[in-house]
């Protein structure tokens, strides 16, 4: 097996085992209702994590994701409730603003040669601060469109509901998978994560690709903000605190190498679902503190980083070669 697939296979195996273990204790967890809730409850995290996957594969990091989600929810609430725009118009503006924000961060990272950690940290403070300036208080959103959306769903066999926002997340993952593995842009992202100097010498448009990567991440964070806004029907400057870290955890648990160059968007989906599974288990159990989610995720993360280290250092080049002379 391709060595970069091994952490992903491990994650998938752990997810299946953990799910079976959870089901053996709480048979109620084996239903499409629970699955539907998984998707709905983690939609914003999943969407943001797709963008984060691209950033990490390219060898960078985006700490601004949670703040961009928070900012977007406030911006949308302000545009709908105070300015009186239709939600769809507000969404379009929010996406445009976050795309521009990401492009600026990408440009700063490339042209100023500042590490992505620093640039996106500054972006995080800017977005979070900007949200608080727009409105320090939570703004409830009451609009016909919102109630329509939250009432619409696709009935799955077994009575589970695939909500609009759950559907958006799945669509984003499918889009991400195609983008990463079947387009030139995707191959450039991996190229940057592998070796930026080589990539440049091989003709990869480094500046354009870097800007596009952070634009993609911020736009998806903006979309996650829209989803979060639909999910909570509110805009609050402090919402989605720390989501960037959950997203990074999901990406790494999903088999993407934190140093870049290797990873799968599909793996991130498993990573998100694994986090959702732990949360759901804790809800079903009823006696555990919700902080156990963090502890379990922390332990998993640590385990996966160890696993990757082992897989990537143990497997030296050893492929057989046929030379014809």
């Amino acid at each position: 097996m391709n060595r970069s697939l091994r952490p992903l296979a491990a994650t998938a195996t752990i997810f299946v085992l953990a799910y079976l273990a959870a089901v053996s204790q709480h048979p109620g967890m084996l239903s499409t209702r629970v699955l539907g809730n998984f998707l709905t409850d983690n939609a914003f995290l999943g969407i943001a994590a797709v963008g984060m996957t691209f950033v990490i594969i390219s060898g960078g990091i985006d700490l601004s994701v949670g703040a961009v989600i928070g900012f977007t929810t406030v911006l949308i609430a302000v545009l709908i409730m105070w300015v009186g725009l239709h939600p769809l118009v507000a969404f379009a503006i929010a996406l445009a603003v976050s795309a521009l924000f990401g492009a600026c961060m990408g440009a700063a990272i490339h042209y100023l040669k500042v590490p992505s950690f620093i640039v996106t940290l500054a972006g995080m403070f800017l977005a979070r601060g900007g949200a608080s300036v727009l409105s320090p208080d939570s703004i409830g959103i009451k609009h016909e469109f919102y109630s329509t959306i939250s009432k619409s769903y696709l009935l799955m066999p077994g009575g589970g509901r695939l909500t609009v926002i759950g559907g958006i997340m799945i669509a984003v993952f499918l889009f991400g998978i195609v983008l990463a593995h079947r387009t030139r842009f995707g191959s450039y992202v991996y190229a940057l994560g592998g070796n930026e100097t080589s990539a440049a010498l091989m003709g990869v448009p480094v500046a354009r690709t870097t800007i596009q990567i952070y634009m993609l991440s911020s736009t998806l964070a903006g979309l996650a903000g829209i989803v979060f806004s639909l999910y909570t029907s509110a805009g609050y400057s402090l919402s989605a605190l720390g989501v960037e870290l959950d997203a990074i955890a999901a990406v790494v648990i999903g088999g993407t190498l934190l140093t870049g160059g290797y990873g799968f968007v599909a793996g991130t989906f498993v990573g998100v679902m694994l986090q959702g599974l732990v949360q759901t288990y804790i809800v079903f159990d009823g006696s555990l503190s919700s902080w156990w989610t963090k502890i379990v995720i922390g332990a998993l993360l640590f385990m996966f980083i160890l696993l990757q280290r082992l897989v990537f250092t143990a497997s030296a080049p050893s492929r057989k070669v046929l030379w014809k002379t």
Partner: protein
Amino acid sequence: MPNIPRDGLEPVLRARKITKIFGRHRALDDVDFDIYGGEVHALLGENGAGKSTLIKILTGAYQPDEGEILLAGQPVSFRDPLQAQAKGIGTVYQEVNLLPNRSVAENLFLGHQPTRFGIVQRKAIEAKARDVLATYGLEIDVRAELGSYSVAVQQVVAIARAVELSGKVLVLDEPTASLDHNEVRKMFEVVERLKARGLAIVFITHFLDQVFEIADRVTVLRNGRKVGTENLADVTATDVVRMMLGKDIAFGHQPTRIGEAETGPARVEFTDLGKSGKVAPFSLTLHEGEVVGVAGLLGSGRTEMARLMFGVDAADSGRVRVGGKPVTISNPSQAVAAGFGFCPEDRKIDGIFGDLSVRENIIIALQAKLGWFKALNRDEQIEIAGRFAEALDIRAASHDMPVKLLSGGNQQKVILARWLAIDPGFLILDEPTRGIDVGAHAEIVRTINRLREDGLALLVISSELDEVVAYSNRVVVMRDREMVAELTGEDISPAVIVNAIAENKTRSAS
């Protein structure tokens, strides 16, 4: 061997009167170079000869200050390597510049993948990759990560990519440096195939025997100037070594020799010192008041030898005795404690702290030896720096100015002063005159002679044979990572040294 140059046939690539100046240094001075289709043209020269500058100009990484480049007779200029690549000049670097984390197929066609509605046609790429590699005699799983294959395979993939995307001129920059013997054979088969296909191949290496084996013509550069271009059929290895190390060596001009100067008791004794893969075990004793010169071509193990002695690389065999007492030297601070000093070859990278002042650069080794708790106060620093600056005639407007503003010769003397300040018993100088104005060479040589008279033991590595002869009591010759000769007395002459360096090459080439 094709009869080159061929009358009436236009070279694929011709560089005319190329000059490149960095600051005050002429890295290339009025150099001509041409290459025909179906030819392997070797480019030889020691470090600093201008090889890499010329290659960077041919491949678009640098722009020449003077001169022109003609591609198939038409003047061209390249903005960057990508443009050179698009116009037909592909380059494969020593450290393979591909993506080990991606598949072989993707590495071949990255940026040129066929797409349909924006979707990469993976099957088509893989089929094409298999076809292309088959023409190089390579059958591998093109879907596997490039990094899972050996360097030799990666290099062939890099060559295949360069040929696919460029297809006229292929520049191979030290392609065999990290290959083993069998892999070198495979590499040469690949080169032969490409030659048969009519490609023009520029081959850069420092392995002389490989040049004779694979190349048709050779151009030798020295100190930024072209020494000459020869048909390899018409010359011997000794001729080429002579071209590389100084063309006038064998012709009568006999530099003054220091002769059988008296030397003191043994200062440092190295016995069977070696490190597998770096330097074969060697034994060498240096006496007080003695200079031992080290001659050999680039890559012969000269620098590796010095690094072992100073503990930069830990030896895996051998013993060291200083003043008759055994010592352990497995890192540089032990070497400093034993009274060793080391002025490395590339002083900009390894020796000089460019932004620090002359004074700080001089006292830094002494301070390190004393330990940081016994800080030298400013007056002591000024006094020490002043004393050595005067002794070595370091010319700086002020000892507080940053060292990087000094000329190369003065920078070299600052490093010398740094080591003299700790009062060493044994000093290693690796290419002390490299990159220094020719006028300042004599002064460095005088300094070396003065240090010898002061009773130091010195090991001086140099490609400047005239200078080696001028200051050495003994000369050891390195070849293929082995000490192959020790010359004394009358044998210390450029002609004998050149023969010692080339001996083996002549044998294997014939």
